């Protein structure tokens, strides 16, 4: 299938390109940009008239809790990859959790096999750092590397002690893999369910101080110095963490970091009146933390924005706050919330897009996330002027647990390509 996408405004954060041009696609790859390819006998099967539209790389989501196999009542690869491509995300990073442990190559292959039957979005796999995520014994990290895991993690599960973490970091770096760390000092978090501050005091909910995160960030940075390993910090929420990582980057450590998109818009105040849809981990923090996260994005301390997509069944959120499960079904708001940062002037458009394309691509060493000759043709066309409402009725994820229902967004995905194949096309109604 050969394609020409004509006269779109091409937005490629990696090269800094922002211009109206044509893109030539052959056999799933981008063949040429601007000038027609000279040396090949290129014959287009379709010419896509994209005048007035934006063409961006498909977004890469660093954290998607895909639930299958093991928690299929919450979501499946089929339901979530369909939701992904309709919202402009073409690569998902599978996040293991205790019920969906990625202990060995068979687990990785099973996910690959399920996804091969779907072929909507790419699913990269992050493997377990320790067996069953118990924080005690190392997984076969070398084997996970061989079958193509893009990194390893222990998720939110604690390590038995810092020595296990130290050894796990050393062993992972032996295999040149990135460690995805969720910074949390479990003793300080205790049974907390929201940020420790004014709102937790008012609601009487057990709380997690910011220090539960910053203490862990500081420990992990110290262990990076000891082990020379490469660490990606997942889901920063506290101002103090941004400061520590800024300093670590200045000192030249191989560190990257991400933030969940909802942390950039919501704070502890959104938890008021016990809204279980705002029960997330790490918790929504204070306004000053939100400001620091935005500043960290802006100065490059925070490399990537991810969805931290956690689809849930209805009952998981239909209980008193403390009994509800944390997490937001956030896949479909990743691209809209990121575009909104540009619209609101927090980040220039290309910088905002870099946080969900080129930068996460670099973190997982993916050839996608850019529009350049030779790169996979994972592309998204969107109409920048369309205003639309995000609603539960039109949401595609199996999990409807979002606090963003009713929000208006500008810029709507019209068509999504995965390796040059159309995997989503909007209805022609608008």
């Amino acid at each position, binding site marked *: 299938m050969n394609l020409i996408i004509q006269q779109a405004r091409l937005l490629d954060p990696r090269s800094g390109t922002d211009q109206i041009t044509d893109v030539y696609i052959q056999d799933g790859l981008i063949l040429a940009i601007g000038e027609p390819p000279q040396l090949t006998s290129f014959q287009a099967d379709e010419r896509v008239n994209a005048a007035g539209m934006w063409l961006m790389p498909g977004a890469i989501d660093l954290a998607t809790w895909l639930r299958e196999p093991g928690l299929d009542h919450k979501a499946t690869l089929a339901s979530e990859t369909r939701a992904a491509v309709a919202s402009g995300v073409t690569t998902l990073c599978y996040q293991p959790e205790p019920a969906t442990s990625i202990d060995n190559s068979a687990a990785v292959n099973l996910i690959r096999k399920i996804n091969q039957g779907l072929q909507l979005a790419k699913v990269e796999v992050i493997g377990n750092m320790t067996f069953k995520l118990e924080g005690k014994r190392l997984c076969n990290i070398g084997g996970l590397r061989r079958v193509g895991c893009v990194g390893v993690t222990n998720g939110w599960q604690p390590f038995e002690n810092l020595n296990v973490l130290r050894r796990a970091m050393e062993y992972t770096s032996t295999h040149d893999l990135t460690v995805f760390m969720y910074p949390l000092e479990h003793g300080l978090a205790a049974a907390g369910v929201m940020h*420790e*501050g*004014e709102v*937790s*005091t*008012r*609601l*009487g*909910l*057990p*709380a997690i*101080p910011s220090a539960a995160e910053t203490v862990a960030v500081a420990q992990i940075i110290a262990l990076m110095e000891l082990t020379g390993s490469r660490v990606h910090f997942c889901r920063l929420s506290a101002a103090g963490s941004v400061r520590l990582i800024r300093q670590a980057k200045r000192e030249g450590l191989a560190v990257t970091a991400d933030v969940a998109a909802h942390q950039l818009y919501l704070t502890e105040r959104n938890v*008021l*009146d*016990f*809204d*279980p*849809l705002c029960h997330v981990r790490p918790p929504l923090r204070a306004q000053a933390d939100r400001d620091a996260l935005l500043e960290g994005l802006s100065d490059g301390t925070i490399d990537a924005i991810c969805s931290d997509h956690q689809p849930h069944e*209805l*009952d998981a*959120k*239909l*209980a*008193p*706050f*403390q*009994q*509800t499960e944390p997490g937001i079904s956030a896949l479909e708001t990743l691209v809209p919330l990121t575009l909104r940062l540009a619209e609101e002037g927090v980040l220039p458009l290309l910088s905002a897009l870099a946080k969900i394309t080129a930068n996460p691509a670099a973190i997982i060493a993916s050839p996608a996330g850019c529009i350049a000759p030779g790169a996979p043709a994972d592309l998204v066309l969107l109409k920048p002027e369309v205003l639309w409402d995000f609603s*539960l009725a039109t949401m595609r994820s199996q999990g*409807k*647990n979002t606090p963003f229902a009713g929000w208006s967004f500008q810029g709507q995905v019209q068509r999504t390509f995965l390796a040059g194949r159309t995997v989503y096309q909007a209805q022609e109604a608008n």
Partner: protein
Amino acid sequence: MHPHLKPGPLPLSMQLAPGNQLNHFLTVEGLPYQLLHDIMDRAEQFVTLPAKQQKKAPLLRGKTVMNLFFENSTRTRVTFEIAAQRLGADVINLDIRTSSTAKGETLLDTVRNLEAMNADMFVVRHEHAGTAQFIARYSAPHISVLNAGDGRHAHPTQAMLDMFTIRQKKGAFEPLKVAIVGDVLHSRVARSQIHALTTLLTGEVRVIGPKTLIPAHIERMGVKVFHNLDEGLRDVDVVIMLRLQRERMAGALLPSEREFAKLYGLNEQRLELTKPDSIVMHPGPINRGVEIDTEVADGVRSVILEQVTNGIAVRMAVMAMIMGGNTGSAA
């Protein structure tokens, strides 16, 4: 998905129908000044009415009140039971341990089942904050919910009986200095008292305790924080002592009961620091010799037993105002 079953915020506004009629009684937060006085006025009428006459005005005849206690509390449950019975309601006590709901039945299943037994009012106590609000939000529209304590969040009838007791003894709230002493962090009573006292325009509200027992940013609820008991007690009109739970020692919040008693226990000497006509309150049950000395608990300034008596009148008042229509005078 049934639209009624959409997860989301549990707005406080559902407590009030148009005209400030009480639909539920979930928290003192957000209730208007006048409504708090209406509750106390109504309680006053029940206090002055002899018990036999109260039975002639059975405002809740034919109604079924269900006490849903997911957490143990004989005393509070009994005062709700007496209050409902004096108003002529049928009372059913359900001791539902959280563990039994954890075995499979969700909280909503439990509520649905009880609704099907023609309940009119749920009196709810639960270990988790927000549970009464949750049940109120998802119950059938004809059901009223009365919060008898949810986690560390709220205990509004306790706060209102305390306000009622203060008003009986002191009259206006505006000139008063009130100190709340002890484990504020874990106390739903303290939170509700703070909301009530600030809504009633109390001159000064203080909280006193070690840093481990004072929650973050509590000053933003409109109180002054003291860590030294002697300083905090100076010139106050009302001292409210909170109960200290034994398990606080295990959580490294306090070294020992003895040290707490020495530093934060109310004794006769310390009472001298307060105004000469100050009163001493405690939501009970009291730990004699820990947060309060026997001489003070049983002393002339203590109004602890009057609080218990007033508890019935205030609970009758709230129930009558929720189920008996308007907020006007009693029959």
